[in-house]
């Protein structure tokens, strides 16, 4: 237990270091918010006019999907950040210190979580400007944001494994784009899943991103009785499903990431 508290304290030191960097070189966070803002505007004004969701303004429907996509991309920073530190030999130096194996990873994922909070705030303001409204209680809305962040935090640990294995920030960036981009589209993020062809439909319905998007939609009150979710368990019980997905991802990738960190040997 004591060791765990110490790992958290060391993690906080590492997180602070990462956040100072974000503050001084804001490019990364600026670009990671600019692209979702562009998405909001594109979908709201270009596709929004062509996409019809019964019983609800498309812009309200859209926001939860964009939030989910955005925080996922936010999570990839964990991979690029670790790969960069690895390349520079900083991970080696950390590894020679008398600190827990998990401390650097806790620090990294925590600072990326803070990043995601900032991004979500900016996105919300953009959403509110284009006509998105929350129709639920304050606590429900908070739970909605919490769920998005929890899921992104879990994915961060997966990205940590990738970053430590691949070692090159550019490769992590490109690889995660190729994987995450389609994943966020074969889902209920931007359109309903009902009209998708068979296998894609099944994939979209069981895609964890769909569960998280659906959960956020419900918690923000952005759903419509005329447009119920498909009759599959993860979308009918989206909040529980999102939590389960997050816990499963964490249970899988936290130990894997720590193992990878232990093995990591920079050249």
């Amino acid at each position: 237990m004591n060791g765990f508290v110490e790992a958290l304290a060391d993690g906080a030191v590492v997180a602070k270091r990462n956040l100072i960097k974000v503050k001084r070189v804001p490019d990364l966070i600026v670009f990671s918010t600019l692209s979702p803002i562009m998405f909001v505007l594109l979908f709201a004004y270009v596709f929004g006019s062509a996409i019809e969701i019964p019983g609800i303004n498309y812009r309200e429907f859209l926001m939860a999907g964009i939030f989910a996509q955005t925080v996922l991309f936010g999570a990839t920073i964990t991979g690029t950040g670790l790969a960069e530190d690895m390349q520079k030999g900083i991970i080696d130096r950390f590894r020679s210190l008398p600190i827990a194996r998990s401390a650097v990873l806790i620090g990294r994922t925590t600072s990326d979580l803070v990043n995601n909070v900032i991004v979500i705030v900016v996105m919300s303001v953009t959403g509110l400007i284009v006509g998105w409204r929350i129709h639920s209680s304050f606590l429900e809305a908070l739970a909605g944001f919490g769920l998005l962040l929890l899921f992104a935090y879990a994915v961060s640990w997966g990205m940590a494994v990738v970053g430590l294995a691949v070692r090159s920030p550019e490769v992590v960036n490109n690889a995660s784009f190729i994987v995450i981009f389609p994943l966020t589209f074969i889902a209920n993020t931007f359109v309903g899943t009902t009209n998708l062809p068979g296998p894609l439909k099944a994939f979209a319905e069981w895609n964890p991103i769909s569960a998280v998007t659906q959960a956020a939609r419900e918690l923000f009150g952005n759903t419509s009785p005329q447009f119920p979710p498909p009759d599959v368990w993860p979308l009918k019980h989206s909040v529980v499903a999102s939590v389960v997905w997050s816990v499963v991802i964490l249970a899988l990738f936290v130990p894997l990431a720590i193992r990878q960190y232990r093995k990591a040997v920079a050249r």
Partner: protein
Amino acid sequence: MSSPVLFAEGLRKRFGGYYALDGFDLSVPAGTVCGLLGPNGAGKTTVLRILSTLMRPDGGRATVAGYDVTRQAAEVRNNIGMIGQQSTVDDILTGRENLALWGRLYHLSAANAKRRADELLEQFGLNAAASKQVKYYSGGMRRRLDLASSFITAPRVMFLDEPTAGLDPRNRIEMWSAVRALAQAGTTVLLTTQLLDEADQLADQIVLMDGGREIASGTPDELKARTGGDWIDVTVRNIAQLPAAAGVMARAAGGKLQTAAGEHRISAAVADRAHALTDVTRALHDAGIDAEDVTLRRATLDEVFLLLTGKDAEEVEAV
């Protein structure tokens, strides 16, 4: 005799089909400085990485401060400090922030970490640049900050991988005195270097390695004695007289000759130390050669290096 603080026996490390370490042994007593010397690719960094638990050996065993590097890695890390060949300070942070960060990770309180950071900035001559981001530092300043960050605590064992690479002579000498002070305070230091002069200046014990194993070890003086001991250097005023001087010295000193292109100096290994100086001086005078300087000296580590590795030390040093 207390047991050695650093101990390695038959260390092996393979990369693909290539043995970077091939049966490496080491034994360093407490509070001494050991210099690992060797050409590029000799395996110096690999030794340091294994002893600092960053890498597991494929064979053999090693202990640091009595702890086994593979089975008791956590205890080893509690007793070591380490500076890699690569700079590991953060560009975006200021010098002071970098040191405070490492202080915190060595578990100093926030206030103590700040205080220690300021002391080290002072000690390493970085006061003026303390609040500047490291990306504006020169290469030498950056290296000094690296070193400062490894001096935060006085660990029992310090590993320094080419600590003075990229430092100017003044800073190199400052660095040397910092290492000496560290050893005086009881820390055992293992450093790698390609500078023979540095090993000569700092190390109590030198381990010369090549091809992943030790090829010679001993104090600097012991190693120098292995080339046959003494040399006599003659500097002529007129370079045209150099060949004549060479002939005279070959006869008078009786040993091998060495000269570098374009230099006015010629060196000869000396067989008979007692009479060499007078014999050579007289022979030069008799031959009418105008000698500016005649000196008798021990062999340099360069000569040892050359003899034992069959490689040109100058070439190695120039990297």
